[in-house]
């Protein structure tokens, strides 16, 4: 009995003294594919690289930094990155950090020391004692820190974080998820399936626009030297001439509205600040407009990425990198439209707006309208068989009957 008691006592002492060390040795963290997700209002399909961070993800992210207290219900309708690793073997005081880099090894303390472009801290938790903690990361944080850009809102004239990066090439990211004890990494896992792709595909050029009946026909070219390999389609924009932005601070307008022919406008004057009561930002007015055609509208601006407002004037799409034609339909005849086109890529990044052309759809007389208008009797569908007469059906039936009879006679013969 004494022996047994001594054994239990020794075991208890060993456990008390050694437990932290045992736990430390056994701390683990894993992250499976289903444990990483970018949650968006409009989900992207598997063809649209849902694990990539696009420019739209950046725009749709919360303008506020996430904190360690940020919860799903706090981030609302914004886009966010959610990681749910599986953690074990931790103890009180351990915490989780998420670092991101464009390839630098952030497990090296020296690379983390400066919190520089090489390695950026994008998440820190208080505790790491939960088995499956939910780590919320702001895509805008990732974009900003990956490029050391000024956080929005920046000084006047400073481009938006997401906007400024539109000429950056794709950057494959590595997320390092560390379980920390003090300043020591006691467990880690990396995630390398996410790429930051904010690159705007180039605008089509040599735009050739034609009008039709409630339709506008687009044809364009893209200089092969500028063509982006991940362009997947094109968006057509049709803004009624004279439409002005409700967002305020618009760029100055160009030339006058023209009916039919193109009008080359002169550079616009500085736009006035928007009316705060209408939701506009009463900040500084826009810059003077560039020389070019605007058709009296300020929604589409050549060389600029289409604004959120411009998306309301999306009047058609053309799918496929090699596509060079598109048609906008269901437009209003005898209304002048400012039309333009922008490329889009596999993650949904829009390119800049092409040149703008003014065009007016009008009613046309098609062949069939002319034919019927002249009293033509044909038409109505393949089954109508010669207009309303039905004699074709009779003749076809007669032919089939003759063929059948001949065949039967030959068989019996």
């Amino acid at each position, binding site marked *: 009995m004494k022996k047994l008691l001594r054994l239990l006592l020794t075991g208890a002492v060993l456990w008390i003294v050694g437990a932290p060390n045992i736990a430390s040795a056994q701390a683990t963290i894993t992250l499976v594919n289903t444990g990483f997700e970018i949650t968006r209002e409009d989900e992207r399909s598997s063809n649209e690289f849902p694990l990539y961070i696009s420019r739209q993800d950046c725009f749709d992210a919360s303008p506020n930094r996430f904190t360690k207290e940020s919860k799903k219900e706090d981030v609302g309708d914004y886009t966010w990155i959610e990681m749910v690793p599986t953690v074990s073997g931790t103890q009180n005081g351990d915490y989780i950090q998420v670092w991101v880099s464009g390839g630098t090894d952030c497990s090296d303390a020296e690379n983390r020391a400066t919190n520089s472009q090489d390695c950026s801290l994008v998440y820190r938790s208080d505790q790491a004692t939960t088995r499956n903690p939910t780590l919320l990361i702001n895509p805008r944080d990732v974009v900003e820190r990956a490029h050391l850009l000024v956080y929005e809102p920046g000084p006047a004239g400073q481009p938006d974080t997401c906007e400024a990066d539109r000429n950056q090439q794709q950057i494959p990211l590595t997320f390092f998820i560390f379980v920390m004890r003090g300043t020591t990494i006691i467990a880690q896992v990396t995630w390398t399936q996410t790429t930051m792709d904010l690159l705007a595909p180039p605008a089509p050029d040599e735009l050739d*626009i*034609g*009008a*039709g*009946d409630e*339709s506008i*026909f687009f044809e364009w070219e893209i200089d092969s030297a500028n063509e982006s390999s991940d362009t997947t389609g094109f968006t057509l924009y049709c803004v009624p001439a004279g439409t002005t932005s409700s967002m305020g601070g618009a760029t100055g307008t160009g030339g006058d509205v023209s009916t*039919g022919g193109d009008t080359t406008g002169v550079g616009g004057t500085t736009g006035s600040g928007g009316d705060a009561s209408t939701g506009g930002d009463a900040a500084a007015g826009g810059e003077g407009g560039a020389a070019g055609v605007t058709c009296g509208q300020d929604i589409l601006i050549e060389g600029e990425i289409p604004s959120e407002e411009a998306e309301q004037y999306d009047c058609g799409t053309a799918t496929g990198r090699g596509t060079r034609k598109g*048609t906008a*339909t269901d437009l209003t005849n005898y209304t002048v439209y400012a039309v333009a086109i922008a490329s889009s890529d596999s993650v949904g990044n829009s390119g800049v707006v092409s040149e703008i052309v003014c065009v007016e759809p*009008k*009613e*046309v*007389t*098609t*062949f*069939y*309208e*002319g*034919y*019927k*208008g*002249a*009293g*033509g*009797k*044909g*038409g*109505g*569908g*393949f*089954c*109508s*068989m*010669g*207009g*309303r*007469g*039905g*004699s*074709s059906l009779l*003749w*076809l039936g007669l*032919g089939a009957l003759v063929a059948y009879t001949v065949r039967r006679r030959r068989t019996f013969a």
Partner: protein
Amino acid sequence: MNAAMLGMSSSLKKRTIAGLAWGATVLSPLVGEAHQSDAPHDHTSGEITYDFERHASPQRWAFELRFAPYLPRVDDEFDGATPYQDAFGDADEGKKGSAFSPGAQLDYQVLRIPYFGTLGPGLGIHWFRKGGIAEFEDGTSGSAHTNSLWILPMYGVAVLRVDVLARQFHVPLVPYAKAGFAWALWESLDAGKVSRIETAEGTDKARGLETGYQLQAGVMFHLNPLAPQAAVNMDASAGVNNAYLFGELWYSDINSFGSGMQVGTRTWVAGLAIEF
């Protein structure tokens, strides 16, 4: 389809391809080939000739590759109005609006009439498409609104080929005539979609099936005498008896006998034919 028919179909295809290839080949070295020393000779006259009977394998079929400028007679339906020419004609060329139409025809030569020719049924098909710009209703220029009309004329005809001149008198001409039933599918597209008109009775789609009749007459120029040895070889290897170039006048009246759109034509056809 039984095995015999499958075999026949395969053989037919093989012969047709081989024959057309030969027909096309024979046109280039016409003169040189005719003077080759190993060509068959008529020993009585000493001239190079082609003897049908000596080199003939059984002959049952004829196949034509056909090419025509097709001008549908849509405007014939009206007194004065010319909706077809208005839509598809070229004002600088006095309108019209014909388009190249390729086609094919296959005959089964059921009956050989001694010292005359062959008679049998034939089936043919052509393809026609014409595109144009639908002009603005207000008369201004600059419309880019496309519209088009396609027609698929088909026919079943009795074919009489009078080959007695070529077979008996070494005159390389084979006059022929065809007559029979014709039908055609057609459709008009408006900016890529089927044209349509909304009426009180509903939507009237611009497509239809018309029936009618047609007559054809032409003459075929026999190519075998120009390359007799090649002709013999082709017959021996692929069973192709004769090859021809032909020209034809084609008249068709396809408007469902007055109750539909007139999609028939009056035109000429040129092409290459083989018998096998």
